[in-house]
């Protein structure tokens, strides 16, 4: 009630200010627009500069390799071969193109061809599903497994597999690291007992984690013909990335403000209440900082682990393209690089959003 009245009063009292306010806000928006333009202008400029430098660099590398090829033909096979080589390179024939850092335009073309390829494969899949519909229904009716599409995966499928692996690994890391972190955070003696363990395993490289997981999962899956590459890779990713969360959770739980602990003591909260109503809420910001690091580490090590595990993700894609050595392989690798970078960035933003949501003192600029 009271608020209503004062609001109304203000509304009337300030009525004469309205035109002025409009002017002010439009001016303000103009200022905003200018600063926005400035900001995005600088971004666009920097992107253009980056593309320009990249273009020039790749051109220089291309020329260096082309010249070397011609030179080599000249010294080894004479003038005629050199001329043929030069003509071949100039004609754009893929058999004799220098295989070096691709230019931005080539990468763009590769991206489009990958998308086109995805469309083809999707259509293929749909056709296959349609063709098999009747057969599959029969098979299922007979209690047998349906026939599934086993053709080549498209680039988008590959990206989705990678994202799936990262999330599975992240979830595993969360489920292991948060509870253990809480337990060792609560007990100083457990913390010192676990300390050597954490210190030793934290710096272990993803490759070694992969090998370790491989040894174990291989035996567990022995005699089972199903594909365990996904399982191996997500477990390796999780184990590799969980340390930041473990350490941060333990730290958050062990360093709760003494005032809050005093409140818990004076109110005589039970252990359960104390942990869930006081200790955990107060360490949530640190736990989420840890989870954010874990997610970005997971995404970073994913590529190496997928490569080793032969899991159909971006890591394997990059490796196969490198081995493949086709004309557009290098530009596909660069496409994958950008996709990896952009997804990593988006994942980090996502975590930052969640972190801000749970952090009670976000307004304090922590």
């Amino acid at each position, binding site marked *: 009630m009271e608020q209503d009245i004062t609001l109304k009063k203000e509304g009337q009292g300030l009525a004469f200010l309205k035109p002025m306010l409009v002017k002010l806000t439009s001016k303000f928006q103009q200022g905003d627009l200018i600063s926005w333009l400035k900001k995005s202008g600088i971004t666009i400029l920097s992107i253009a500069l980056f593309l320009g430098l990249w273009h020039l660099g790749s051109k220089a590398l291309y020329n260096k390799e082309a010249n070397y090829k011609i030179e080599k033909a000249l010294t080894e096979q004479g003038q005629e071969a050199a001329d043929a080589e030069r003509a071949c390179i100039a004609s754009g024939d893929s058999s004799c193109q220098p295989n070096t850092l691709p230019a931005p335009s080539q990468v763009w073309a590769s991206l489009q061809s990958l998308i086109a390829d995805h469309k083809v494969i999707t259509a293929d899949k749909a056709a296959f599903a349609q063709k098999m519909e009747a057969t599959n229904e029969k098979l299922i009716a007979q209690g047998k497994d349906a026939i599934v599409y086993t053709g080549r995966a498209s680039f988008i499928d590959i990206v989705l597999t990678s994202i799936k692996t990262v999330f599975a690994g992240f979830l595993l890391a969360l489920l292991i690291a948060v509870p253990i972190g809480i337990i060792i955070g609560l007990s100083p003696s457990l913390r010192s007992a676990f300390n050597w363990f954490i210190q030793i395993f934290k710096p272990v490289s993803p490759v070694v984690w992969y090998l370790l997981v491989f040894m174990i999962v291989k035996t567990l899956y022995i005699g089972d013909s199903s594909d365990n590459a996904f399982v191996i890779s997500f477990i390796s990713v999780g184990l590799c990335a969980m340390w930041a969360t473990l350490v941060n959770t333990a730290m958050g739980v062990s360093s709760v403000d003494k005032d809050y602990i*005093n*409140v818990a*003591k*004076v109110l*005589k909260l039970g252990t359960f209440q104390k942990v869930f109503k006081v200790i955990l809420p107060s360490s*949530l910001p640190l736990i989420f900082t840890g989870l954010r690091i874990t997610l970005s580490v997971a995404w970073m090590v994913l590529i190496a682990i997928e490569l080793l595990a032969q899991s159909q993700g971006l890591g394997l894609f990059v490796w196969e393209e490198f081995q493949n050595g086709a004309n557009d392989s290098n530009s596909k690798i660069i496409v994958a690089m950008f996709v990896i970078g952009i997804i990593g960035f988006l994942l980090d933003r996502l975590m930052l959003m969640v972190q801000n949501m749970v952090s009670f003192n976000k307004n304090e600029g922590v």
Partner: protein
Amino acid sequence: MAYLELNNIYKIYGEGDGATEVLSDINLSIEEGEFVAIVGFTGSGKTTLVNLINGLLKPTSGEILFKGEPIIDTSHERGVIFQNYSLLPWLTVGQNIYMAVKEAFPNESKRVLQQRVKDYVAMVSLSPAINKRPKELSGGMRQRVAVARALAMNPEMIIMDEPLGALDALTRGNLQDEILNIWSKDKRTALLITNDVDEGIYMADRIIPLKPGPNATLGPEFKIDIERPRDKTALNDNPNYKKTRNAIIEYLMDIGEARKSVSQTEYILPEISPKSFVA
């Protein structure tokens, strides 16, 4: 046997070279139903003394008896208003108080508890802010929440560590009256730590100065022989009030001077700077 008894209490923080003896030879006894105020210089060990009595700290030597039993832990019988409010920043005003009353009255229904929360929030005039989080409140509002939380638990003894420091004169006066009200109506026992001699005289039966630290110890007590209920406006004309007030202030200035000339450190009269709990 006194209600609360402190016998030869010493409190030393730290060990070895880093050890400092904060409190020395503290002797204090409070009768049931009494209202005792302790005035002291900043950093002299008032909060340490409070934490010894509420059970958060253990004395290095000496014994503290509450109703004849040694204090070994915190208890709902002794409610605490912390100097730095100590509200949980992720809970709203209502939730902060609810958490306390739920622990104090585990057998009450949710509805009764919620009503209790509402009543005490209203008592400190914070009803419009019941759903706000501590960081949205001013220092004075936070202090009022802390007062409401402690009183809502209906403790037998109320221990207050500079509970009204950050409040303006008017709110301060109102809350002083509320605390006195609860204290006299339910025949509580109260220990008030304060930096304000006038507040002590208005509220307490006895005022005891705590000398500046380290090795702080209690000074001689000053009895306040003024009829209750006391009238703030009439206090100024009360000859008894003037006499007591002058005696206390003179004593405080004397021990302040004495310290200064010995240690060359400057003791400013107590001035609380509550710790921001979200910083």
